[in-house]
């Protein structure tokens, strides 16, 4: 057993992870240098175990939670912004696509004809209905009055 062998085993022995075998024990009992190294290793181990455990500041949890909330809010802002920008791009692309299709297909001409036809239809409808408008108005007033009386009577009954 050489000093080198023992010195290599000093730390595990001091930490209690290894027991010195007979040869090592004999060497330690006769070699002052190795015995002193083992003592030093034991003292170091004890000092390390006695080291103060730093404690977090009292407001640590509150501050950490606030930071997490801020980070989450920031992430949500980024996601919202990206989502809105994406939607705007899609809307723009869709509008541009429709415009290209319509302009290339000549559908604008058909569209104008359809609008004119719809306008003419509306005008005819109004002209036909307008003479009877007072009758319809009177009928509506009577109906609303009747419903009002019915609601008033029912309301009293439920009280």
């Amino acid at each position: 057993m050489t000093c080198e062998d023992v010195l290599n085993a000093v730390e595990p022995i001091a930490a209690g992870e290894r027991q010195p075998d007979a040869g090592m024990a004999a060497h330690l009992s006769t070699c002052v240098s190795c015995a002193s190294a083992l003592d030093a290793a034991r003292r170091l181990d004890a000092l390390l175990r006695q080291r103060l455990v730093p404690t977090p500041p009292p407001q640590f949890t509150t501050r950490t939670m606030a930071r997490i909330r801020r980070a989450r809010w920031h992430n949500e802002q980024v996601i919202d912004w990206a989502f809105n920008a994406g939607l705007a791009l899609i809307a723009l692309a869709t509008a541009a696509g429709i415009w290209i299709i319509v302009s290339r297909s000549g559908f604008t001409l058909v569209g104008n004809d359809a609008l004119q036809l719809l306008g003419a239809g509306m005008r005819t409808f109004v002209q036909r209905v307008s003479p009877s408008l007072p009758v319809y108005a009177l009928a509506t007033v009577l109906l609303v009055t009747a419903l009002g009386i019915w609601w008033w009577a029912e309301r009293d009954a439920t009280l």
Partner: protein
Amino acid sequence: MEPDRERELIERCRRGEVGAFEELVDRYKSLVFAMIMRTIPDRSQAEDLAQDVFLRIHRGLPYFRGEARLSTWIYRIVVNVCTQDRGRGTAQVSLDDTNARVSTPVVADRHAHDLEVRDRLEKAIAQLPAQYRLLIAAHYLRGVQYEDLAEAMNLPLGTVKTQLHRAKKQLRMLLETDLR
């Protein structure tokens, strides 16, 4: 923490239950802060890094598969945060920094001597390579096992033990006169 309670807490955090993550922070803050503080002596920087750890836990929790224990996963995050912080550089402290040393009493005073040895121990630890510093910091915290460290640092168990013994040997050499 028991595995069942640990799983339950994770599930509650994943569901976004009010107060669940706060409970997790409360449960692990001492360990996380102590590990970081022992590696990075600046208190405000250590708090900042400890908050970083919990921010990462919060982001990563939905993807945590539960293959490792929660504590092991947290140690791994601590190791990563400390490793990334290494790039910023740590001030080198000399063991003979006379400004910071406690003056040696003329009369041999055991208590004062112990304080001085502890002061020099902290300075000696600050001189160790970052990996060794982290190992020393974590190993001497109650409840942190070799296996946890090996998994967190992605190293074989034997390597963790060897590195820890080397770290202690280096410390013993640095503190040779103080430990007599």
